[in-house]
């Protein structure tokens, strides 16, 4: 949890201040790296809660939290702008996301009476991870985390919905893709990092529309390199875990399976 939250916040702040200090957009990719740490944290939280058996499937909890998270992001930045404390924007976002996540969790546990003991804590965590994820990728696209650029560049163009669904998918796909009795945490989290880098790729493409080559090129290069590394690790994990990895073949007979 600590790595996820602190790492994401560090990434977002670094990107914003390096960008404004140099007056360019070369450092936007650092925010996306912070967002990938938030994806890692979120995927781990989804894995913990989904192991209990949600009944409606894994995607639903991530979609709920990301839908709530994006409202928290924009309100947090607006509050920061109104009170003149733009520098505290991401922290306010985190607090508001925790509030909305806690409300969702309490409603799901106490009113709807879902019988998962860790639901309140998990929903709070997933909402925090989701909001940091949206803020991180939006900062990578817009170049800074102040309200005006995020509104004009990310929301008005509709890129926030792209971040919404790509980020949400990056959070729940790892556990959903590794669902089964032999699921292993390391393999799932390697996949989470790989899908996080794909989300960074999409954010890089969108950043190219806003800030041109300066934002797009470092983001795309780091995204592709990171994806290759973690996808190959996932492939190696799969080779180790699978019953057999055959280049081709017929269905094994009963005797061969035992």
């Amino acid at each position: 949890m600590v790595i996820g939250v602190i790492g994401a916040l560090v990434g977002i702040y670094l990107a914003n201040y390096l960008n404004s200090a140099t007056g360019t957009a070369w450092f936007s990719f650092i925010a996306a790296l912070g967002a990938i740490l938030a994806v890692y944290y979120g995927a781990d939280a989804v894995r913990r809660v989904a192991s209990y058996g949600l009944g409606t499937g894994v995607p639903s909890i991530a979609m709920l939290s990301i839908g709530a998270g994006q409202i928290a992001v924009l309100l947090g930045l607006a509050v920061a702008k109104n009170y003149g404390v733009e520098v505290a924007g991401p922290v306010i976002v985190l607090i508001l996301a925790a509030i909305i996540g806690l409300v969702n969790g309490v409603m799901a546990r106490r009113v709807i009476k879902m019988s998962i003991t860790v639901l309140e804590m998990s929903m709070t965590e997933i909402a925090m991870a989701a909001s940091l994820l949206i803020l991180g990728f939006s900062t990578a696209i817009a170049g800074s985390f102040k309200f005006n650029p995020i509104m004009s560049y990310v929301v008005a163009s509709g890129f926030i919905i792209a971040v919404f669904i790509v980020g949400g998918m990056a959070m729940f796909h790892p556990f959903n893709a590794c669902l089964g009795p032999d699921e292993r945490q390391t393999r799932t989290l390697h996949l989470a990092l790989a899908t996080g880098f794909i989300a960074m790729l999409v954010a890089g493409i969108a950043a190219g529309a806003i800030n041109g080559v300066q934002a797009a090129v470092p983001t795309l290069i780091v995204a592709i390199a990171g994806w290759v590394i973690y996808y190959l690790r996932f492939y190696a994990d799969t080779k180790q875990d699978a019953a057999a990895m055959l280049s081709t073949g017929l269905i094994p007979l009963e005797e061969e399976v035992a």
Partner: protein
Amino acid sequence: MVELGALTLVGAAALIAGVAEDLESDVGSQSNPNSQVQLAPQMGYLHRLYNKAISGEPASYPFYAAIGAATALSVLSVTGNDSLIGVFFALVAGAFVTALIHGVYATTSYMGRLASQSRFGQPIYLDVLRTHTPVLMAHGFVANFSVLLLTWVLIAQHLSPFPFVVLAFIWGIALGGVGSAVGDVHLGTDRYYQDRPYGSGVNAAHSGSVVRKAESGLRNSIDCAWFCSKFGGPLTGLGFGLVVYLHFWKEVVVKDWWSAVAGIIIVMIFVIMNTYLERYSRQRYGTYKEEIEAE
């Protein structure tokens, strides 16, 4: 009149999107019938089918549409959206990048799910991965491009005020919903259980015993897409095409509150058609049990 012509193009693109979407979900065995493919190794039926579990079609099609729309917007910000050819190539570029990401997600799902079933002895077949993934990428490309095209035409004709990415996202969810409701039944009831008699639902006791031996050789998911292209695919296309076309038809042909009246009339027509269909199915097919047995 221009609007009605553009709307016909939108309806045609929606039809193609529906067909391609259903066939893509059949090659990848996504969504609902995938529960049977997932269950099969546990019941001892090892298979050579694809197992793509990217969360079900109504959640993965908005994903593709949003990525495609974001990429198309990026390309257009460089080239400018004045010329028709420029827009066309931007949409193609968007669909292409999405197809690559789609392929990556599909391979991770196949490898991940099958590796988590290692205790049942289900092997991962790399040739299934190599042959099926490009096919589903191609179908996904066609479906995604059609969704992007229809969204673009709707926005250019001022039929919807939403931004490009948001509208593509919503039509993606609608496409996934229609594809999941209509096309998956043909795959799940007919093709996966082709050895059972036609004309009955799948008995719960037979869950997991999907057909694994095909007409010639072992069954794979590309065979399933061939079968479903005879009925399931086109019907899904008809469904989604009707959804999109009628949705805007009632606003283009008549204006203001008459659109609401037209909407109510269309809903009532479908209710009447459904009544006739239900009565026809009962009279034609008859009962499964006799009255005495049921008492």
